[in-house]
């Protein structure tokens, strides 16, 4: 019975996709994605579905168990045409590659030029990615293509752009050893001679602790907003689409977050025994006197949340 198989699958965790889903969805999705055009058989298509679904736990939290409807919803949200094309290319299907090149070659080159900021570097970047996508890199004697890692959550073009950006940023950091954000934790940047603190060390300690607690209380979106705006110097217009709001809303959010942060710091200082006036006065301290690693404070990712290993940054490890 289909319901039984779903139940069995649910109890078995995320290791398998229920057969009931496959029997109905597989044919439908197989037809919709034109997988046959690129020589993908039902079996291969089913394997792709299983790998994609289980790798992301159907878009749910790692500890959650996907219901049948959640699995259906998850598969329905995938871009199967792009996914099938990517897998067919990774498998070396000639027709898929011809289609891929005809559709994505020019946009990808333009994107690479835009990312690199130079036509020469951009074309070089695009060519390198093409070589990787084509599977010129081998591991254990097997051709590996990054297209295998595409899971169809976003568009294939967007995935290509993001991959290009990753390659560019990693290359830039490897070769230039320059970071857009100051990273005091790495200890490589020359530290300017610190002036004598104008406030007592105890007061600065209280302030640092209050700031750290206040930042911890912020939501992930608020921390991202502060980092993008104040650390990276991004504009409201750049931040807005990532937060799915208008730039004016970003401005209001920013104003609200900074105001709320200030209030929380004062409250935290008061909780530490300072009067309100003393807490207000403590806010006027020179930030350079504070021993705070704001970047680390702003980071609250769960361990093992992401599987991709970053390219090691030479000289920074």
């Amino acid at each position, binding site marked *: 019975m289909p319901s039984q198989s779903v139940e069995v699958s649910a109890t078995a965790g995320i290791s398998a996709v229920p057969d009931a889903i496959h029997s109905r969805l597989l044919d439908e999705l197989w037809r919709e994605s034109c997988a046959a055009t690129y020589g993908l058989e039902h079996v291969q298509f089913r394997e792709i579905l299983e790998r994609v679904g289980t790798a992301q736990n159907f878009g749910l939290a790692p500890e959650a168990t996907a219901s049948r409807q959640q699995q259906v919803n998850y598969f329905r949200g995938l871009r199967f045409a792009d996914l099938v094309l990517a897998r067919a290319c990774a498998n070396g299907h000639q027709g898929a590659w011809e289609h891929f090149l005809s559709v994505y070659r020019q946009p990808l080159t333009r994107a690479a030029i835009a990312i690199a900021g130079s036509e020469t570097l951009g074309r070089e970047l695009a060519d390198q990615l093409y070589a990787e996508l084509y599977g010129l890199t081998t591991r254990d004697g097997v051709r590996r293509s990054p297209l295998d890692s595409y899971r169809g959550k976003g568009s294939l073009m967007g995935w290509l752009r993001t991959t290009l950006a990753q390659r560019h940023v990693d290359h830039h950091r490897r070769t230039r050893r320059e970071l857009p954000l100051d990273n005091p934790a790495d200890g490589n940047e020359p530290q300017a001679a610190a002036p004598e603190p104008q406030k007592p060390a105890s007061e600065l300690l209280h302030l640092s602790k209050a700031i750290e607690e206040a930042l911890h209380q912020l939501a992930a979106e608020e*921390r991202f907003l502060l980092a993008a705006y104040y650390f990276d110097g991004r504009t409201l217009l750049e931040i807005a689409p*990532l937060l799915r709001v208008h730039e004016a809303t970003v401005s209001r959010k920013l104003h609200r977050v900074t105001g709320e942060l200030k209030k929380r710091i004062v409250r935290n200082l008061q909780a530490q025994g300072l009067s309100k006036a003393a807490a207000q006065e403590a806010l006027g301290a020179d930030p350079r006197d504070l021993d705070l690693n704001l970047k680390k404070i702003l*980071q609250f990712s769960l361990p093992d949340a992401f599987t991709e290993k970053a390219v090691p940054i030479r000289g920074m490890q």
Partner: protein
Amino acid sequence: MNTTSQLDLHPDADSLNAFAEQALAVPEREQILAHLAGCSRCRQVIFLAQQAAAEAPATQPTKQPATRFWSWRLAWVPATALAAALALVVTLHPWRTPQMPELAKAVPLNESAAPTPAPKEQAVAGAAHKPVQALAAKSLAENDEFAARRRTPEELVQQSAPSAAPPAEPGASASSAGKGQAFLPSSIESAPQQETTAQFQPEPVVAAWQQERQQATGAYSASADASQVSHKSMRAEAYTSHASRQAATAGPRMVQQSQSIPASSFEIITQQQLAESVASRKANLPRLPSGLAAVSWATVRHLTLEIDLAGTLFLSDDSGEHWEPVARQWTGHAVEVRAKTGLSGNTAPAGVFELKNDAGSTWASADGKTWSAQ
């Protein structure tokens, strides 16, 4: 909440892209946001990708209006030519009024010889021209030599003889040809001004053609030296003649004149012959006994042959003073008569005239009276 540093673990491209495209579920989105808050590398990646995505569609809409803008700008060129031609026609209207009905039928014959007309111009041409237009188009399309006559004056100049290529002024011809359209309105309005941009000395046949064209349209200025008319002005003439034909208000000779430009592999008509022909025509309007407009004509020495719209061939041995019809010895509808002469124009070899019907078949005649199939 675990505050372990995640600087060595990053979301993959798929997750970052899905985040940027708002394709993530809330839990995943919160995870990515939390990572982005502390990872400058991933923030940089996502902003770079977003910037690249924004630039791609941003370039297209900005280009499309530009293309539209320029296409509309270019559309003014034939429109301006049409307006200029209309102005000329209004001026010449009383003089040419008796031939107007015939002209309206003759005009579409050479419609395809000019650049693509604007829809407005086509509307002006009128639906009454369609039968003749269809007939002429059919006959012209079936014959490559006729097709050569549909080319622009510039192409005809280049094809008529190897020696007709623009020499002398280094780098002048190409630039003038390339900028011809841009200067088109001014070149139409004032032919003498073209002397300042004249880039090469045209062949006599070109000069004669120019002279004939300008006389026919009434736009010729006495001060204009036809031998110095530039490549550019020829294109302007093409537009002008086209616009005039579309307006169906210029003289019937316009159709014939463009047809009388020789193809390189076929013949070369000397300047003297053309000048004589033009002079005789202007002095003898109207000419054909049928009262119909001539669609094609040819002259060798004192012999002149003309075909009217009905396909009747007329012969004149006194430069158009008197005409006599030639008995039909060909099949179909005669659509063109041409003259074949030697390079000097002094000899008249056998088969000096050539006649084509609407099926593309050819007949030759030495005296214009007796025709034999070829």
